[in-house]
């Protein structure tokens, strides 16, 4: 960012950027402390999230000097408090005191947050510790298949009480028709909303029987057509699956939609998540300068 601005850019369009750099680049370029500039940038790039009440719909204003910065809200509907500003470094990070970023670590262990008046907070003491060699985060995802889903509700108490057995029975029938499931080239999943659809294996109340369950039947396969076929087979098998004690013999599922199945398209999963050591921070991000609007 600094490189582009140094070269005279009026506007920088970047494919991917460390979010705080959008605000920190200019002060760092002008010699302000890196740690304070980045901490300020980290707060400002989240709009008014660090205010109370927090919001992503309007902005905050910061004034930076050599020893700290002051943040204030621009809306009369919110204020900055020590807690709201300090809590911001908790967000989406595992350690609020040490925030790793490109080229080093933002260290908040000596940071002070002081309430100046009703709506302004002063932040000081944050420092940047450059890493021994410059590292940037490399993230990548790969295509793992194509997905089709079907959504259906269940209200029958006898079905809900035996749902694990029923779903296992359906899985066995589907796998008999589609050997790629057993061979791990395709995946069939059932999600049971109302039981553990949100938390999966982390759910502590999985054993409490709900009065209804929202089921998502999900098939992922190497082609969309194959995912469609597996999902359709699983859905129709489950719809008419005869379990012990069934009273409702006209169908086990309530479909909110017809057609009942949806192509969800390509499926990607994280495949690269590494730190990459680079000699020259600029070299990894080649920049082109171009005039816009016919005026140089």
């Amino acid at each position, binding site marked *: 960012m600094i490189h582009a601005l140094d070269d005279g850019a009026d506007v920088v369009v970047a494919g991917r950027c460390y979010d705080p750099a959008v605000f920190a680049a200019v002060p760092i370029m002008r010699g302000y402390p890196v740690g304070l500039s980045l901490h300020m940038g980290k707060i400002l790039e989240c709009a008014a999230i660090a205010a109370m009440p927090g919001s992503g719909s309007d902005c905050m204003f910061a004034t930076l000097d050599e020893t700290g910065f002051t943040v204030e809200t621009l809306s009369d509907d919110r204020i900055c408090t*020590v*807690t709201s500003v*300090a*809590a911001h*470094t*908790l*967000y*989406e*990070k*595992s*350690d*609020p*005191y040490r925030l790793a970023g490109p080229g080093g670590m933002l260290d*908040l262990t000596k*940071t002070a*947050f002081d309430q100046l008046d009703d709506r302004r907070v002063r932040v000081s003491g944050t420092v940047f510790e450059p890493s021994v060699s410059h590292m940037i985060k490399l993230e990548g*995802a790969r295509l*793992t298949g194509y997905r089709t889903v079907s959504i259906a509700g269940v209200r029958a108490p006898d079905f809900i009480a035996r749902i694990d057995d029923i779903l296992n029975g359906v899985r066995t029938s589907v796998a008999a028709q589609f050997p790629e499931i057993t061979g791990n080239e395709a*995946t069939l*999943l059932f*999600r049971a909303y109302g039981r*553990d*659809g*949100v*938390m*999966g*294996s*982390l*759910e*502590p109340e999985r054993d409490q029987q709900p009065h209804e369950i929202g089921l998502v039947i999900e098939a*992922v396969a190497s082609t969309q057509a194959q995912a469609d076929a597996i999902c359709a087979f699983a859905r129709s098998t489950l719809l008419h699956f005869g379990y012990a004690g069934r009273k409702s013999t006209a169908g086990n599922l309530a479909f909110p939609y017809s057609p009942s199945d949806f192509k969800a398209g390509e*499926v*990607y*999963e*994280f495949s690269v*998540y590494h730190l990459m050591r680079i000699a020259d921070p600029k070299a990894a991000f080649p920049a082109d300068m171009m005039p816009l609007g016919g005026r140089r």
Partner: protein
Amino acid sequence: MTRLADVTSVIRSKNAGPYELTLDIIFTETFWFDEAVRCNLVNAATLASLYGVDESDVLSIIAFAPANAIKATLRRPLASGALGETDVYGAQQHAPLLTLTFGNE
């Protein structure tokens, strides 16, 4: 008996990268933050039991005094967006914390 939910302004969960889930508890008053730290309310054994994971999956628990906050980070059972994963952004994994209470001391 005081419920954690009654003395906090924020109890939330979110991804910290695709492989970790981070839990934030922000107290309304320094008194209750200090009390939670003093009695070690949020500890690895309690979190492991609430979430049905091994204690080794509780990666860190950090008290952050400037925000009256306690932050705990768990290893995700499945990476964000992996097949079978249930919460891509990890934003709805906080509910078990709402059941925590300060013991009768």
